[in-house]
């Protein structure tokens, strides 16, 4: 896979880092989005085909972090703060200035935090670079996250869920539910009829693969998120589960 090191259309005079794997048919607006990226090969950021990453999106990925951005998903200005794993499925939309974090970047204990802060002036780059608690964040397929929302470490957002603008999501979000508020709570769930518009009993992906304009082309869906494996779709079970597999195939840190 050819890796574009310098983007023809880039407004920022920079390079796409080696650890960012961008599919040919993915659109990444600028190398500026990787200014805070400290991830390491084989990859720390993976953007799948048909996905677009616009504007001031920021991949703030630590050496052990892996951000996977699924096919046909789109964002403008999301801040990914990743020290372990952030996975976004297919066809999800992430609003402007949303923050998705699997790490707070600081310890909970003030004494440890003080020690970390005193290391900052000696750090290269000069930032909070401590070993802190992390918990993977998984955003499903067909999810819509509103402007300025924050997704906290350890949260799983199920397929088809909607997160209102400025919400702060602390708990897992069920598939096809709508959550709003700070802290976020469920205000609505799609009933069976509404759900049938976007998902078949076999699941969202089966429906979308049959209907989407690129049907027949390899789609590389992320596994369904927020549902037990037993109810995973026929298609997603047989489709190339590329994102998840690549994540697992990553060698353990020394």
């Amino acid at each position, binding site marked *: 896979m050819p890796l574009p090191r310098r983007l023809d259309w880039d407004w920022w005079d920079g390079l796409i880092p080696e650890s960012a794997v961008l599919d040919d048919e993915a659109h990444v607006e600028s190398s500026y989005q990787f200014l805070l990226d400290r991830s390491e090969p084989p990859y720390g950021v993976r953007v799948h085909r048909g996905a677009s990453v616009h504007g001031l999106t920021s991949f703030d990925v630590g050496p052990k972090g892996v951000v996977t951005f699924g096919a046909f998903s789109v964002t403008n200005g999301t*801040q990914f703060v990743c020290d372990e794993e952030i996975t976004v499925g297919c066809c999800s939309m992430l609003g402007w*200035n949303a*923050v998705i*974090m699997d790490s*707070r*970047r*600081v310890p*909970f*204990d*003030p004494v440890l*935090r*003080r020690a970390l*802060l*005193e290391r*900052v*002036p000696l750090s290269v780059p*000069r*930032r*909070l670079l401590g070993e802190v608690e992390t918990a993977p964040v998984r955003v499903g397929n067909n999810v819509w996250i509103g402007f*300025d929302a*924050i997704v*906290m470490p350890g949260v799983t957002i199920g397929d088809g869920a909607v997160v209102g603008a*400025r919400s*702060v999501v*602390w708990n897992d979000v069920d598939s096809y539910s709508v959550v709003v*508020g*700070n*802290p976020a709570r469920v205000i609505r769930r799609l009933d069976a009829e509404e759900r049938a518009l976007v998902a078949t009993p076999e699941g969202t992906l089966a429906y979308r693969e049959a209907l989407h304009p690129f049907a027949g082309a390899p789609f590389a869906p992320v596994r369904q998120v927020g549902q037990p494996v037993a109810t995973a779709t026929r298609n997603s079970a047989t489709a190339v589960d590329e994102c998840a597999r690549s994540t697992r195939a990553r060698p353990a840190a020394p």
Partner: protein
Amino acid sequence: MTETAATWTDGRLPANVQVGAGTVISGPDAFKRFRTHRDPGLVIGENCTMDLTHFSFQPDGEVSIGDWCVFASVVLMCERQITIGNHVAIGWNTYVMDADFHPLAPVQRLADVFAISPMGVAAGLQRPPVPAAPVVIEDDVWIGPGCMVFKGVRVGAGSFVEPGSVLTNSVPPRSRVVGNPAQIVGTV
């Protein structure tokens, strides 16, 4: 404190800013709205990292920041006084403000709108007074990304303010704070 020891990456420091040794301030807009006439208007201690932080001060504003602080894309909006201790870390897109910057009373607010209009500025209209109350952030506080700290709030030492919290009231030392409006959900 030695002013010259600071590493300043984008242009000259205003004359009424004191910065300790080992402190770094970055960002082209850090002092774009730094309008304070106080001297010093801003005192920053040693070994701080002020990354893309905006110091947006009104003419009477004064802010002091202790040692070993790390701010990333923070907006400090000061009408009168903001005091920040040592070892304070504040995350991206958090706003700390000690005033509402316009009067709350409807009639006064209307007067303010006229006063700040181009015609009001040209005519030298006096702005009505704006209520302000000092903000104090004590030592060892962490404030996550996307938070707001409003006027009159004192954040107790060691507190842990979770992302997205909106602080309208003071919190005692070692509080863990979540939500809008912020609730104390535990201790550190």
